[in-house]
């Protein structure tokens, strides 16, 4: 794993000597392939130049890591209990951050802030109970750690924390054979089950399997007050407010999730990608809304705007034969000339169907029929699959951008159907305007997709990136723009977060989002469960 970037060390984008982009490694479909159009897209979109590099510090500067502030009696007791632990600087640095832009940017520059003083690896529920008990006894601060894929500053050590900070690593993955949970967040390769529960995660295929709150049957969590769990596995209960909902989305402020019982499903027999081209974003949104209304959404349905469609297109690998390139040309001709779609307005919905073969084909027809009513044209499996690929490699792409003065990130919201279009347009435009006002030299990439559909609305996902040459404090500019974008989202009827969570990054808006009484309720739970603030990551509240 990389210490200052996303994912596996062997997998990364780079521009080779010929100036062509390629993706290294063997793990992904794109691995080892040349992406001939990425360079032009990259330079054209950001005004970036391959001559202007901003490389990262190659190795972690361990001397910059402050020596651990250990609570000796705690360490002694823990040793006696036989729990694995470490205060090696590399282990600590690795668990001191998530993947917010400012966190990665600082690491690339070799700047290291407050890091946990030690890391512990419990091996079972009993271990966790012991750790929490000792933490209470010796008053140390515990920060649960799952996959480290947070994008809400949730893993940052609070600056005001004076106690010894212990990172409690729980990264154990579910490895059942012959079944699946169906929960597939974009960070799936790296994130952990405990993390999903603690952040109210959402998966790409939630239309079939549900979001984490619908998947969970039983949770066991160790808190300073003791263990919280239900007494049975009943599929639904009327026993007052569901206590699971105190745990789901508690973001590590109440305890450590040690056991989760999830629904599992047989691995689907058949899977099929698909895509639909729409003449413009409005038509696309109208189609998705109709699909949601008829409740026939496939496992996944996403609508990318024009910019994101072009972005996806730039990731097309080198075509293997003249015939394919001829066919591509023909398709393009058909869509833009024959059907009269404006290449600067058209947008693409990507689809993923899952289930038994017959039903998938039937389902597919139903969705394509609806799309046709909104001027949508089926655009093949390939385009669909590439759309999903984008979401799995986007974080790797950010690392590439950061090598060439381009920084960016993604953020999300959920919004009622009737406001989707206005919110998308206003937020994108706000980003462009804010960048201009803050002296960003080149127009930013400001793009969105409708990434999940619900009965009552949609989840919208934004990508935002810009070329920061000429800015003295790019991360600050980035944060100001992102802040403005979030204000714009809230002003347009969007939620504070659909699945990224609040962490410390979005805490300031919590009161506005859930009302002060709502916030008071959450605070009183925290007060009861963890009066000493042992789980002191200061997220959420």
């Amino acid at each position: 794993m990389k210490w200052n970037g996303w994912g596996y060390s062997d997998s990364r984008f780079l521009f080779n000597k010929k100036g062509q982009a390629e993706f290294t490694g063997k793990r992904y479909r794109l691995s080892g392939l040349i992406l001939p159009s990425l360079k032009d897209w990259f330079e054209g979109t950001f005004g970036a130049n391959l001559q202007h590099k901003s490389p990262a510090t190659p190795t972690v500067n361990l001397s910059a890591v402050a020596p651990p502030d250990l609570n000796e009696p705690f360490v002694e007791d823990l040793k006696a209990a036989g729990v694995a632990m470490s205060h090696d600087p590399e282990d600590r640095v690795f668990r001191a951050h998530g993947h917010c832009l400012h966190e990665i940017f600082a690491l690339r520059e070799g700047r290291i802030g407050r890091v946990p003083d030690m890391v512990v690896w419990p091996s079972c529920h009993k271990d966790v109970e012991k750790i929490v008990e000792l933490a209470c006894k010796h008053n140390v601060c515990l920060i649960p750690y799952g996959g480290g894929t947070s994008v809400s500053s949730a893993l940052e050590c609070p600056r005001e924390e004076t106690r010894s900070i212990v990172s409690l690593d729980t990264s154990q993955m579910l490895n059942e054979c012959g079944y699946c949970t169906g929960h597939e967040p974009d960070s799936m390769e790296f994130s952990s089950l405990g993390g999903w529960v603690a952040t109210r995660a959402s998966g790409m295929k939630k239309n079939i399997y549900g979001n984490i709150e619908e998947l969970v049957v039983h949770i066991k969590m160790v808190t300073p007050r003791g263990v919280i769990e239900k007494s049975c596995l009943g599929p639904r209960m009327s026993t007052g407010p569901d206590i699971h909902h105190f745990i789901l989305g508690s973001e590590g402020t109440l305890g450590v999730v040690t056991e989760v019982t999830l629904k599992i499903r047989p691995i689907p027999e058949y899977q099929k990608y698909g895509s639909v081209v729409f003449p413009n974003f409005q038509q696309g949104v109208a189609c998705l809304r109709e699909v949601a209304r008829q409740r026939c959404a496939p496992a996944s349905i996403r609508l990318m705007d024009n910019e994101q469609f072009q972005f996806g297109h730039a990731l097309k690998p080198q075509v293997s034969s003249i015939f394919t390139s001829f066919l591509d040309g023909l398709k393009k001709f058909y869509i833009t000339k024959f059907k009269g779609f404006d290449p600067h307005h058209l947008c693409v919905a990507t689809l993923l169907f899952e289930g038994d073969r017959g039903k998938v084909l039937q389902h597919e027809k139903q969705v394509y029929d609806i799309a046709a009513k909104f001027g949508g044209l089926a655009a093949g499996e390939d385009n669909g699959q590439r759309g999903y690929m984008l979401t799995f490699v986007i974080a790797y792409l950010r690392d590439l951008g950061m090598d060439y003065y381009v920084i960016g990130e993604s953020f999300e919201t959920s919004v009622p159907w009737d406001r989707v279009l206005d919110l998308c347009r206003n937020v994108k435009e706000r980003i462009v305007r804010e960048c201009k006002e803050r002296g960003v030299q080149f127009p930013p990439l400001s793009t969105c997709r409708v990434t999940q559909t619900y009965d009552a609305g949609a989840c919208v996902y934004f990508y935002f990136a810009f070329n920061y040459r000429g800015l003295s404090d790019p991360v600050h500019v980035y944060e100001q723009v992102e802040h403005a974008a979030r204000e714009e989202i809230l002003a347009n009827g969007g939620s504070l977060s659909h699945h990224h969570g609040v962490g410390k990054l979005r805490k300031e808006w919590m009161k506005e989002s859930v009302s002060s009484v709502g916030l008071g309720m959450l605070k009183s739970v925290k007060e009861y469960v963890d009066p000493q603030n042992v789980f002191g990551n200061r997220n959420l509240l």
Partner: protein
Amino acid sequence: AASKTPRHPVLKKRDDFEDVLEERRRSSDLRYALRCYTPTLYKGLVPCKASMLKTIVLQSDHLQYVIKQVSSESGDSTECVAEEASLILDEMAHRLQLSTIRFFAFTLSKAFKRLFRSVCVNEEGIQRLQQAVQEHPVVLLPSHRSYMDFLMMSYLLYMYDLPLPVIAAGMDFMSMKFVGEMLRMSGAFFIRRSFGGDKLYWAVFSEYVKTMLRNGYAPVEFFLEGTRSRTCKSLTPKTGLLNIVMEPFFKGALFDVNLVPVSISYERILEESLYARELLGVPKPKESTSGLLKARRVLSEDYGSMHVYFGHPVSLRSLAEGKINRSQYNLLPRYIPQKPRVDTHEFLNDAAFRLVRIQEENMVLKPWVLIATLLLQNPDGLELSFLTEQTDWLRHLALAFGAFLDWPDHEACSEVISCSLALHRHLLSVSAGHVQLNVTDAPQVETTPEEAVFHRAVVVLSCASYRNQILHVFLRPALLAVAMQSANSNRKDDVYNCFNFLRNMFSNEFILCPGDSIQDFEEACYLLMKHGVLQVLEHEIVMSASGHSTLAFLCSVLDPFLQGYQVVCRYLCEETNENLTEKDFIPAVRSFALKLILAGRLKCCEALSSDLQKNALAALLRLKAVRKVKVGDQVTLKVNKIAVNSLEDTLGKSNVNQNSWCSSMAMLK
């Protein structure tokens, strides 16, 4: 508001003007009218057909919702209500046609060349507008002094290849059969003057305007002042339409709206004496085609020059920043109409005032405005040489206060003055080097004294309409000057209290942004201090030795208004009729004032102006010295005589020392 830095109006930078008639005088009007017109459009949109627009409006969620609501309230079927909505829309909708525009381009070119020596436009403003049109939907907000205003606006936009606006016009035009339809085809849409509680009408109207704005088909144009100002003072803005054009932004349907204030100023107003008569109670002639034809006579007269200044586009988004919480609309579907909340209302009002202030500031003032001011202050006339001297003095004062004065640089002062006098010769008489308003000249043989007063008042009010154009420049310092006089104290607090009282009293008369009291006071202090009239110390305001003449002048600027308001107060105190109706108020005050004038107890003809009387009543109602009571279908006015009396006294105090100021003025002579 107190913490804001004082405004420095003197530092204003304005654009240069180009005369658009110059080119018209050189080339063919016909070819010009038929030339290729390719306006820059908002995001390259193609303008939408009127019929298409109608369908969009009628099928909008908002209108459908209101139709259902009205239907369930009234018991009529929804089809029936929908039909009614469709009829309202037919009555209202514009039918913009390029051919009509071309017709106007031709005829107006001819007319403008006859009427005006020049029509000057700031081309930088046009360029800014061109930019603004492409970025966000645009709302054009011209000042309103004449019927000519919106014809001129469309004419200029056509000329500069800008998209033609759709213009909110009063229903009264519709009665002019042919002209009404012509205006409709040049982009006017018609709204009833009052439709108070008519939910359906409001829904159709607001949805129509919002649809045009949201889709960016055409800039929406309307007059913040609601109607033509008969006095050439800016009118207290109306917020109804402003609310409609702002709502799509509040509710997130638009990223931003560009509000473009436009200031249109005339060297001589076409309706000049018509307005004066109207203010004196001769009802305005109903708009009729034949009336317009009679207006042909006006074509043979010289109306000097005209200036149109396109102000900087004001971004609604930046205007609303921190003042409007847009998430207040999050919890209801946006098509359900919601009354604006108190804070939204405050914002609308504040924005409207600021926009009118921008209009005022960009209004071009001609030398005649200064002369008219001086002639009104000297009813017995002035020697030409002294007038020249005084005008020059006033010119420097006006410039020091930031007036946008169009004074020919290279000409001698006397030359400029004689030109102005010539253009306005019907208002004055010059004999043996003595200049006087044409007040004594009464050609008719058998005139009653009433008629003589009436005749004099027409001239005075016509002349006042020019002085009024510069009032906004002197207003704040003048309020301070009067306040210093009536405070009878140098203590800053006392002066401020008087200032605040006057400001409050006159806030229906002049454009005074609500809540800006402290800022206005500071601005007045700043200007007078800078001009060496006052010394403003920490707790005291002291007049400088050389400040007398300026203060005297400033006091007399407000004098007609002080006197007029006193007359209204005195009338209300002396009136014995318990059942004075609102309708009878104006004629009653008028005859009261007339009696005072005839008896020689009142010199000020401006007290006869119905505009002043209406404003005074509005102020008294606002200050709760008078109450409206509904009796049957009549509205009667209940007067709190003690309160009115005390207001009159306070106003009187402001006038007490008038004589001493005047004598110092006389000494100067």
